[in-house]
């Protein structure tokens, strides 16, 4: 029986794995498979794809652990492998997304092109929380993958702008700009759904 190393700090586990200890691999797998699954699922949107991504990711971790230089945290490195694998899988397969431009705010002469209402007020009376979560999830799924990834890492996984930039191999200003556009587009979609629900009442 391999030793139970589930309680060891991550850095120690990584060291042990580099030394060829397979039990350390198992401990890291257990620690991260849930997070990596969520991330893979949110990018690919399909269970079968998420499963395939997970297999590739952890196999790559095992194979490439020697090249992990420890400059970033192990988790960041793992997220990066996951995002790259998932995006690669979608490439050329994901149906063309409608441009997010249609859901960005419209202006005329610098002013809002039309009056903006606060559709969030009293939302609980218009829609059940469970249904609302469904609408939000669908709205996220319609975002192009590069926007979806930023939103998921930032708002769902709780990474900082700097960590997201590291995962995506890009700059903090790029992450901030992309996150802002993702939120603007989501806001536009939710506005459409909420206004429609309100008009039906």
């Amino acid at each position, binding site marked *: 029986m391999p030793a139970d190393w589930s309680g060891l700090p991550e850095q120690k586990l990584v060291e042990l794995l580099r030394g060829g200890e397979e039990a350390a691999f198992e401990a890291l797998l257990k620690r991260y*498979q849930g997070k990596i699954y969520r991330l893979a*699922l949110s990018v690919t949107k399909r269970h079968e794809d998420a499963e395939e991504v997970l297999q590739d990711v952890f*196999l790559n971790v095992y194979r490439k652990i020697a090249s992990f230089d420890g400059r970033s945290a192990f988790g960041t490195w793992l997220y990066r492998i996951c995002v790259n694998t998932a995006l690669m899988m979608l490439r050329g397969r994901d149906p063309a997304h409608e441009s997010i431009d249609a859901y960005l*705010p419209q202006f005329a002469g610098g002013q*809002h092109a039309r009056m*903006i209402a606060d559709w969030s007020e009293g939302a609980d009376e218009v829609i059940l929380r469970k249904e*609302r979560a469904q609408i939000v999830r669908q709205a*996220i799924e319609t975002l192009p993958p590069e926007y979806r990834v930023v939103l998921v890492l930032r708002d769902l996984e709780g990474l900082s702008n700097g960590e997201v930039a590291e995962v995506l191999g890009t700059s903090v200003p790029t992450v901030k700009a992309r996150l802002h556009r993702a939120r603007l587009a989501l806001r536009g979609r*939710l506005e459409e759904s909420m206004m429609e629900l309100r008009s039906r009442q």
Partner: protein
Amino acid sequence: MNLRERLKQWVRFPFGGKPRMMTCEELVGLLADYLDGSLDHETARELERHLDGCASCLNFIKTYKTTTAWVKEITYEEIPDEFKDRLANFLKTKIRQEKSGGT
């Protein structure tokens, strides 16, 4: 008011009335920085001045914040147990193959 002062006044307020206000479009562009507190004090004050007189922008901020709050509430489903078992078996088999020099 002497001529010099009137000129200064005209430069600041070219068309009489008020100093040039931030537009709605500019405000929306600055929103992310404003909300995470990274906007400089002066620009933030200007943004707030715009908000005082613009119901649409006020509602825009509210719904922008709500959007983020609702996103943060979502939970993705947990990894299924049978999925974990399949993954562990897949990896064990692969690693064993690689160790024995197979493919």
